C-alpha cells in the first residue's frame, strides 16, 4: 500500500518530518480565545485549542453547536470577531482562504463540494494547483516545462488516488461517483495541497459501518504516511472514540469539555449536553 512513492512525495514526507524535528513543540494549529458574532448572535466564543504536528483530534457537539463555524473560521471563510489563529506559528488574521491553504490548512466539506464536471484525476490536479511549477506562458505555448509538469502531476495524482483506493475511478466524472467515494475523493484533493493539517467535516456522514471502519484505517494511514495533523468533526461516536487522541466538545459555541476519549466518555457535562441524560440510557 504505502511502499512506492515518487521522489516528490518522499520529499514532502521528509519535509514534514523535518519540520516536526525543527519546530519541536510548535503546534500546527494554535487557536487563542477565538470568537465570532453574527449580528447580535454569538456563534462561537472563547475557543482555545492547540494541535500538535501529528495529532488526530476530534471536534464534537450537538447539532448547531458551531462546529462547522469553527472550521470556517480556521480556514478564513469567516473572519473572527475576537481572538487569533496561528498556523505553524503564523497569524492568519485578514488572510484569504486560498492563502491559509498555502500556509498548510486543507479541508473537506460537510456537504461535498467536488468539481462535479471534472474527472476524479482532474479534481486532484486542481488540488495540486500550487505545487505544479509551470508558468502561464509555458502552458499557453506548450513549452517543455508544461509537459514535464503535467506528467509529474498526473503521476503524483494517480499515486494519491491509489493511496485512498480510488485509482480505478480516476477517469470518472466526480459528480457520478457514489457518495462514499466522493467523500474519499475530497480527502485526496485536500491531501494534494501538501497540507500540514487537514480538517475533515463529517467524513463518515452517509457511510455504512463497513465503509466507516475502512475510513478509520485510512485516517490513521494518512497521518502515519504524510506525518500531518488531522482535525475532524464527526457524529459517529465509534469513529471519534477510536481514532482521536484528543477530543474537544462544544455546545452553544463554547467548549464544555476537553480531553482524551476516556475522559470525554465519563464527563458528566458531555453526557448531559451531548449524549443525553444518564437516566435515559
Amino acid at each position, binding site marked *: 500500500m504505502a511502499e512506492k512513492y515518487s521522489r516528490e512525495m518522499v520529499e514532502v514526507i521528509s519535509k514534514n518530518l523535518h519540520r516536526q524535528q525543527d519546530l519541536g513543540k510548535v503546534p500546527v494549529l494554535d487557536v487563542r480565545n477565538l470568537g465570532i458574532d453574527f449580528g447580535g448572535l454569538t456563534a462561537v466564543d472563547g475557543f482555545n485549542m492547540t494541535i500538535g504536528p501529528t495529532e488526530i483530534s476530534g471536534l464534537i457537539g450537538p447539532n448547531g453547536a458551531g462546529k462547522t463555524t469553527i472550521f470556517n473560521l480556521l*480556514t478564513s*471563510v469567516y473572519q473572527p470577531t475576537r481572538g487569533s489563529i496561528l498556523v505553524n506559528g503564523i497569524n492568519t488574521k485578514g488572510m*484569504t*482562504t*486560498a*492563502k491559509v*491553504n*498555502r500556509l498548510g490548512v*486543507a*479541508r473537506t*466539506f460537510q456537504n461535498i*463540494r*467536488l*468539481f*462535479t*464536471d*471534472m*474527472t476524479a*484525476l*482532474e479534481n486532484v*490536479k*486542481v*488540488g495540486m*494547483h*500550487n505545487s*505544479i511549477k*509551470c508558468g*502561464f506562458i509555458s*502552458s*499557453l*505555448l*506548450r513549452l517543455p516545462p*508544461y509537459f514535464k*509538469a*503535467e*506528467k509529474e*502531476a*498526473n*503521476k503524483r495524482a*494517480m499515486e494519491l488516488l491509489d493511496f485512498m483506493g480510488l485509482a480505478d475511478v*480516476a*477517469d470518472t466524472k466526480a459528480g457520478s461517483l457514489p457518495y462514499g467515494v466522493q467523500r474519499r475523493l475530497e480527502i485526496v*484533493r*485536500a491531501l*494534494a*495541497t501538501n497540507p500540514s493539517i487537514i480538517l475533515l467535516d463529517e467524513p463518515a456522514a452517509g457511510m455504512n459501518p463497513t465503509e466507516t471502519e475502512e475510513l478509520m484505517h485510512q485516517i490513521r494511514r494518512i497521518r502515519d504516511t504524510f506525518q500531518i495533523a488531522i482535525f475532524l468533526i464527526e457524529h459517529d461516536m465509534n469513529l471519534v472514540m477510536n481514532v482521536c487522541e484528543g477530543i474537544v466538545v462544544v455546545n452553544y459555541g463554547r467548549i464544555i469539555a476537553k480531553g482524551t476519549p476516556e475522559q470525554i466518555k465519563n464527563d458528566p457535562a458531555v453526557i448531559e449536553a451531548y449524549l443525553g441524560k444518564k437516566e435515559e440510557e
Partner: protein
Amino acid sequence: MRIKNDRKTQLTNFLTYALVIVAFVILQYMSEGKMLTKSMQGYLIPICVYIVLAVSLNLVVGISGELSLGHAGFMGVGAFTGVIIAGIFRDTIDNEILRLALSMVCGGVLAGVAGFVVGIPVLRLRGDYLAIVTLAFGEILKNIFGNLYVGKDINGIQFAFSSEAIKLAEGGKMILKGPMGAAGIKKIATFPVAFVLILITLFVVLNLINSKEGRAIKAIRDNRIAAESVGINVTAFKLKAFVTSAFLAGMAGALFALNYSSVNASQFNFNTSINILVFVVLGGMGNILGSIISTTVLYLVPELLRELQDYRMIIYAIVLIVVMLVTWSPKVKQMIQVVQVRIKDLFKKKDKKGGSVNG
C-alpha cells in the same frame, strides 16, 4: 500514462483544428477560382471575426461561468484602435500585412487593458449583477469612441472629445470623427489573415483550457468555495480569463474594422454583444467547436434569407428556438431517443426476418 479523458480532449481539439483548416483550404480555393458569389466572398471575413468573438466569449461565459454582456465593447476598442493605428502608419509602413498585424496587436493590447480595468471592479460581482455591469461598461466603451476625434497632420497626432478642439495644419487628415466614425479606411483585411487569427485564438483558448490555469478557472466555476479551499486565488484567475477574452476580441475588432471602408461606434452596441452571446449559447457553453459551427450557421441564416426581407428575422428566431429545444429540452431529447430506439428496432426486426428466411 494512459488517461482516457486526456485522449478524448486531444481528439476533440484535433478535430476543431482540422475542421478550421479544411474549411479554410476549401474556401480559399473556391474564392481564388472565383467560385463564390460576391456576397459570399464578403461574408468570409466577418464570419471569421465572429468566430473569434464567440470563441473568446465562450472562455468567459462557458469556461469561467460569468455572464458578460459587454463583449462588443472590447471589440469596439480593438476596432477603433486598429483604425487609428492603421491610419497613423498608412504612409510609414508600406507592407499591408505588417500594418494589419500591428493594428490588430495594438487593438488586442488596448482591449486587454480595457478588460483589466473593467474586470477589477466587475469581477467582484456575481450572476445578474455582473451581467448588468458588463452591459453598462460595454456601452461606456462604445460611447467613448463615439465621441472621440482623432486627426493627423505634419505636426503629429491630435486626440480630442470635440471637433473644434482639433486644428489641423494644411494637408492634415481626420482619422476619427466622433459619432460619424471613421471613413475612408483602406481595406487591408484579408481572408488568410482572418484564418490565422482563428488559429491563434484556438491555440490560446484550447491550450489555456487544458492547463493548470484552465483547471483552476473551471474549478472556480464549478465550486468557488472549494476552489478557494485548495489555494486558488479566485479573482486572479477570473481576471486572467476575462483579459485574455478581451484581448482576442480586440484583435478581432481591429480585423473587422479594417475590412470596411467606414465604421462607427453604433456598430458595437448591445445588440452585437447579444448576438455573440447567442452564438455561444447555441454552440454550447464551454464547447469551442460548437461555437465555431453555430457562429457560421447563425451568421449565414439571416444573410441568406435576405430575399425574404421582412420574414427573415422571424425565421431566424424560429431557427433559434428549434435549436434550443432540440439541444436543451429534456422532453425533446427523450423524443429523439425514442425515435432512435424505434429505428434501431426496425433494423433489428428486418435482420431477424432475414435470418429466419435464410435459416
